[in-house]
């Protein structure tokens, strides 16, 4: 089309804004209806928190001076039978005593800021990332080998790979994780983490195999004929000519597969691996901030998957150099 009707765009953009606004208002009304009290301020501590170092009185005595010095305060304590006074520094906000107060030995005076600690959400996120990464890595290797077996001339290799792919694709991942953990894990004495990674790797491996097979078969026959006519062996042709070209073509579907893997990895929480999902569930039992936690967990998954998809998009662009 030669003419672009840009003037017809804005009513639809306006409608989009209206719909999004409506959805937000609906959500707000819905939470009002159930009388839910939002406590977003509780969320940050589950990412990271600062430890409190409790400061106690070294002996029984009297507070003779409290010197507030901005954020921190110096408390001077005079021992009861007499002797050298002691100075204790605490955070002003945590100060428990006033000037002239009597304290017993080991009584709490206040707290000092301790070191920063990683919260359970961050820990869970990290577990999710590395479990996905490791099972993705092994899944890629399994998929490559299975994909090559799938198109091999050897009937035994072909049969085995078809059987594996069909078994994995025909059963739910949740069931596979249970079988891997309770059956294979018990027989081989596998750690729950190993069982979880194994189940995930086998799961993506099967899908990756089909993606790689399709990628290899999409490379024109003339490519391998040209390579073979130059005297390259079948293996050399595969590694230098077919796979590099196939890899470029399968990058988008592979990216989709690995993004799914990150989301599917939430299922390993059923065998008590403390990933992001399991951390979320554990926090809820103590914080009661159910809505906030699930929204936060969802957002974290979204961040990880979008970063990965940007990364793979960038990789794709780099590979597109030769077109």
């Amino acid at each position: 089309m030669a003419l672009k009707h840009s003037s017809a765009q804005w009513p639809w953009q306006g409608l989009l804004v209206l719909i999004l606004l409506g959805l937000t208002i609906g959500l707000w009304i819905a939470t009002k209806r159930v009388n839910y009290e939002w406590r977003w301020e509780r969320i940050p501590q589950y990412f990271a928190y600062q430890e409190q170092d409790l400061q106690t009185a070294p002996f029984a005595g009297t507070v003779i001076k409290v010197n507030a010095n901005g954020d921190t305060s110096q408390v001077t304590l005079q021992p009861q039978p007499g002797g050298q006074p002691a100075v204790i520094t605490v955070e002003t906000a945590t100060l428990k005593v006033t000037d002239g107060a009597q304290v017993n030995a080991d009584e709490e005076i206040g707290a000092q800021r301790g070191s920063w600690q990683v919260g359970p959400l961050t820990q869970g996120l990290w577990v999710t990332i590395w479990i996905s990464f490791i099972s993705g890595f092994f899944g890629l290797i399994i998929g490559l080998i299975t994909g090559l077996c799938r198109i091999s001339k050897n009937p035994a290799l072909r049969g085995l790979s078809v059987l594996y792919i069909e078994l994995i694709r025909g059963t739910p991942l949740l069931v596979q994780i249970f079988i891997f953990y309770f059956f294979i894990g018990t027989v081989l004495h596998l750690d729950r983490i190993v069982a979880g990674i194994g189940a995930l790797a086998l799961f993506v491996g099967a899908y990756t195999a089909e993606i790689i097979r399709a990628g290899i078969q999409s490379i024109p026959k003339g490519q391998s004929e040209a390579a073979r006519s130059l005297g390259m062996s079948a293996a050399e042709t595969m590694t230098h000519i077919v796979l590099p070209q196939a890899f470029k073509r399968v990058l988008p579907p592979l990216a989709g597969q690995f993004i799914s893997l990150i989301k599917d990895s939430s299922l390993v929480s059923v065998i008590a691996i403390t990933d992001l999902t399991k951390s979320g569930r554990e926090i809820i039992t103590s914080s009661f901030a159910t809505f906030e936690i699930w929204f936060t967990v969802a957002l974290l998954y979204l961040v990880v998957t979008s970063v990965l998809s940007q990364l793979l998009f960038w990789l794709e662009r780099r590979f597109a150099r030769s077109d």
Partner: protein
Amino acid sequence: MIKVNKLIKIFEGRGQIVRAVDDVSTQVAKAEVVVIIGPSGSGKSTFLRCLNGLEEFDDGQVIIDGIDIAGSKTNLNAVRREVGMVFQHFNLFPHKTVLENVTLAQRVVRKRKATEAHDKAMALLTKVGIAEKANEYPSRLSGGQQQRVAIARALAMDPKVMLFDEPTSALDPEMVGEVLDVMKQLAREGMTMAVVTHEMGFAREVAHRVLFMDAGKVLEDAPPAEFFTAPKEPRAQAFLKQVL
């Protein structure tokens, strides 16, 4: 250099049996240029592809430089190094630059050093007149340029024989000449060549012998002067009447 003995290739599929190459015997001497012509589907490509084992034949013998390519002890990859092939659709490696297209097999198959392979590649690219495109990707080149790179790629292996399967059929008319010129030069330098082509001018000028194929059989085998002026076979006469 090439000896073919009672070669038979049969395609079976969907209840049809095609005798693509049907009892062909011929030979090509060292430095000889043989042009193969014939109607579409007569088995020219299949015959050529049997010569370097790209097509597994059903019966007969192909002997390249004294080696039976279907022999049980023959390393087919070793034979193929000595037999260059140029395809109708070039089949350059699109993920490699022009230079890498020409150096890859030298490094992988001939195990040459990087500098040696590079120098050889540049010399050949200069020879086919395309050295200035060495660092381009094939998709940036015209058809004629791509085909010349493909010839350089095959020559980089120092083959004893070159096979050409309709090297100019996919080209725009104005590019046919540049590719034929390279082939003519090769012929003058004494390369042993088997060429499937529809370029009758090339056959007349360069070929030592013309083979006419129809339905998998070689019906006529004669020097071009003889073949183009007085073909014996009625089917060859009919074919020539159509194309000339």
